């Protein structure tokens, strides 16, 4: 696993030169802006009546316009949107090597394939974490701009911890997506898997088994469900299995693309 630093540098160059960081940042920044809009709606019943449906929806998820509700919305949106967006990032970072047919140039080098896979995961994790930080900071700005009532330092601390942990859980779950991008040779198979796990996460959570399904767990955590250790272990094991599967695929499978 030598030369990892250089492999990370190469992955960073590829990510920087693409339009993906900008597109994902633009997509994700809609979350705090949307949340801010809900806050405005909640603060002004007159406007709420005029927009009708949205106001009803906002009442269900947040209730009142204050910092705890807004930070809770951000954390939930990050956890659920993250499954999709972080999955999209992993699909791109791994799948593009197959779509652009560049993977063959990474397979017979003095830098090991494991180092390259590891570097890709570093980039996916850093990229996803940076998006989380960005929406959190934008969220603080939007919350201030819509003049939410002042809250205690404890409220902000708790909100920060919740977002950080849920982002960590969601990021750990991108590794199986990377496996499907590699074994499926492109973007589409992993995107299909992302859609499938998002759907299953909803259905399984509604059925009451969410604490055992990896992709339901970040959302349940944010919603304050009392998750047992087993849930965290399931997320960690899923992440490790995805990492090991992806590395083994790159190292051992026949590479014909």
């Amino acid at each position, binding site marked *: 696993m030598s*030369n990892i630093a250089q492999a990370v540098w190469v992955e960073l160059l*590829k990510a920087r030169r693409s339009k993906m960081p900008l597109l994902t940042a633009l997509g994700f920044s809609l979350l705090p802006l949307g949340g801010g809009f809900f806050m405005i709606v909640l603060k002004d019943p007159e406007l709420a009546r005029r927009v009708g449906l949205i106001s009803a929806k906002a009442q269900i998820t947040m209730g009142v316009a204050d910092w705890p509700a807004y930070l809770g919305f951000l954390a939930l949106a990050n956890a659920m949107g993250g499954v999709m967006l972080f999955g999209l990032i992993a699909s791109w970072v791994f799948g593009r090597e197959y779509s652009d047919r560049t993977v*063959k*140039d990474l*397979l017979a*080098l*003095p830098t090991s394939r494991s180092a390259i896979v590891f570097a890709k995961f570093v980039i996916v994790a850093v990229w996803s974490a940076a998006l989380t930080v960005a929406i959190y900071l934008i969220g603080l700005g939007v919350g201030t701009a819509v003049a939410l009532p002042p809250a205690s330092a404890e409220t902000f601390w708790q909100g920060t911890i919740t977002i950080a942990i849920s982002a960590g859980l969601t990021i750990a779950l991108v590794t199986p997506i990377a496996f499907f991008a590699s074994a499926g040779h492109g973007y589409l198979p992993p995107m299909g898997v992302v859609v499938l796990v998002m759907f299953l996460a909803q259905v399984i959570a509604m059925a009451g088994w969410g604490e055992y399904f990896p992709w339901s767990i970040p959302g349940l955590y944010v919603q304050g469900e009392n998750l047992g250790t087993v849930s965290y272990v399931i997320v960690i094991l899923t992440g490790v299995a995805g990492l090991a599967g992806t590395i083994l695929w790159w190292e051992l499978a*026949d590479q*014909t693309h």
Partner: protein
Amino acid sequence: MNVAIETNNLVKRYGDVTAVDDLSLRVARGEIYAFLGLNGAGKTTTIRLLLGMVRPTSGEARVLGTRIRVGDKKPWDSVGYLVETADAYPELTVRENLEAMRRLRPGTGSKAIERVIERLGLIAYADRRAGTLSHGNAQRLGLAKALLHNPELLLLDEPALGLDPAGIVEIRNLLIELARDQGVTVFMSSHILGEVSRLAKRIGIIHRGRLLQELDVDELERNRRGRLVLRTRDNQAARSVLLNAGFSAGITADGTIEVKDNAAIERPDDIATRLVHAGHAPTMLHVEQEDLEHYFLRLVGMDGGNAK
């Protein structure tokens, strides 16, 4: 140790399809070895086997003395390669693509990039995004990536693909120079015998996964068949004269007489004399050597039984 590539009974099967069948070959160091075959003959699979990208079903391959195992890091610091099409990251410039490759090949100095850019004639395109390059220049970039770290061995899959005639000559000369001046071993695949016969020392012909023949370029000349082609004002009558004289003369689709007997090919003047005496003086007569394309198709049994 003078062998750069050695394979012993190498077999690769994908389900029922045998892509490479019992392939045993040796490539000496410093040699340019051409691996010739039609599309789907097993050339690319062989190169992927040599590069440890696919696992052999049975048999083994050794490259620069190292037994190849899928996923190993050795001996790739001494090997440059181009497999199938030359692809690059489209949003990165030519220079950035090379920089990315340089970083993944520790020990390659930053000057190497400018050196290969110049060597492959990419100076004018160095800051162009790879996605905007023509086929020919994308191929040059692929070759530049293979040459970046001054490898001892080059494994090149169809190196002339997409190049214009001037580019083909340029790359051919570059490969000849590398082998002659730096002792670089070149193992290249191609489906055009005429192209490889100008630079390779040895040629291996693969068909349906099997190595049909290995020969030196000199042998190639000897193995090609010749024929005598001639025309008279009455070809049918002239043919009868030759048949009566014991030659196996035939009439080709374009109406000329062709004679494949060695006696005729070696002494065409005797044929001319005989025809003149019979009152059918040739209006055209020449000895042709089987062209490389036909020779190749004859070897792989795809000449439709009409070998010239």
